[in-house]
């Protein structure tokens, strides 16, 4: 980007990159998070609620997984406990997947954008 003193601040901002296509691909997500149609009929209220609930569960589920891995690494679980814990979490993951499918939600749908804090997942 060459700086030209003649370029006033009221002109359109300059954009400079050598990988325009890649950035286009990534920035498309900006508009993807906007709903294609906003309505408050009962079905989308239900789906919206499901999305919220599942997002929270998914968040907690991931925390649980992390915690389980830490405990396992920490060496204070017996092999049987590890196996049981793993199975329980495996079932939880499968159950959540089922619910996602039931409501037609993808992993992306469940990823809340918390602004400066970043994404939930």
């Amino acid at each position, binding site marked *: 980007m060459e700086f030209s003193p003649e370029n006033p601040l009221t002109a359109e901002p300059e954009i400079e990159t050598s990988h325009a296509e890649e950035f286009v691909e990534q920035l498309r997500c900006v508009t993807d998070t906007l709903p294609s149609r906003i309505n408050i009929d009962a079905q989308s209220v239900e789906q919206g609620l499901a999305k919220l609930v599942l997002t929270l569960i998914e968040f907690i589920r991931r925390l649980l997984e992390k915690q389980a891995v830490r405990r396992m690494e920490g060496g204070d679980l017996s092999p049987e406990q590890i196996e049981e814990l793993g199975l329980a*979490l495996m079932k939880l993951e499968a159950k959540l997947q089922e619910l996602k499918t039931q409501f037609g939600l993808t992993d992306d749908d469940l990823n809340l954008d918390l602004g400066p804090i970043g994404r939930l997942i």
Partner: protein
Amino acid sequence: MKLYAYCLVEDLDPFDATTRGISGAAVRALQIDELAVLVSDFNADSVAVTRENALDHAAVVRSVLDRTTPLPFRFGTLVTEQQLRSYITSRKPALQTRFAHVRGCVEMSVKIIREVSTDNEAPKHDEITSGTSFLEEKRRALLGSEQKATEATELSTWLHEQVDSLTRDERVVVRPSEKLVLAAAHLVERDKIPQYKEKLAAARKNRTELHFLFSGPWPPYSFANIELEFKTQFGVS
């Protein structure tokens, strides 16, 4: 009749009355106490997110950038005059602090793409039959994402160090598991823009494994918010 609000300005005398806004409506400066709001009349109940509207919005906000630093409203802000008045009078001190913070500056953007390794993807479910191997697999994935998180933080620190002496403030969003790993907004004093650009042009040469996008100058969109929204909503001070 609703108003489409573009931005808040501190002082704008005289205002260039030839600026056109959304749907070609005339833009005017609405005086509220010692501040002014750039508005245009808006006839419908909805603002479509179209190319024209987005560009019109951006054009109005930057039309004053030569003379003053505005606080932009978010796209789609439709209000009555009364709402504007109560908003401004109730938040005057916070708004004035904001103005002081951005005064004389513009926003510059840096976005960075980095190739993400995929060797930590979880194997198919039918390969995992025991709880133990399930957890072990999770552990591997976790290590992978921790690594990515560390790299992303290092990248953020590196960028910060490049421009810290030239920026008044920054807003950075880091997304360790995505290609677009970092998006930064820098608040830069106008006379420091050439140095800022030079610094980044040089820095970029040292990181050829990364893909950069630089844009600007912008009005201070990322620095306009007067407080964290959820703090406002829950009354936490």
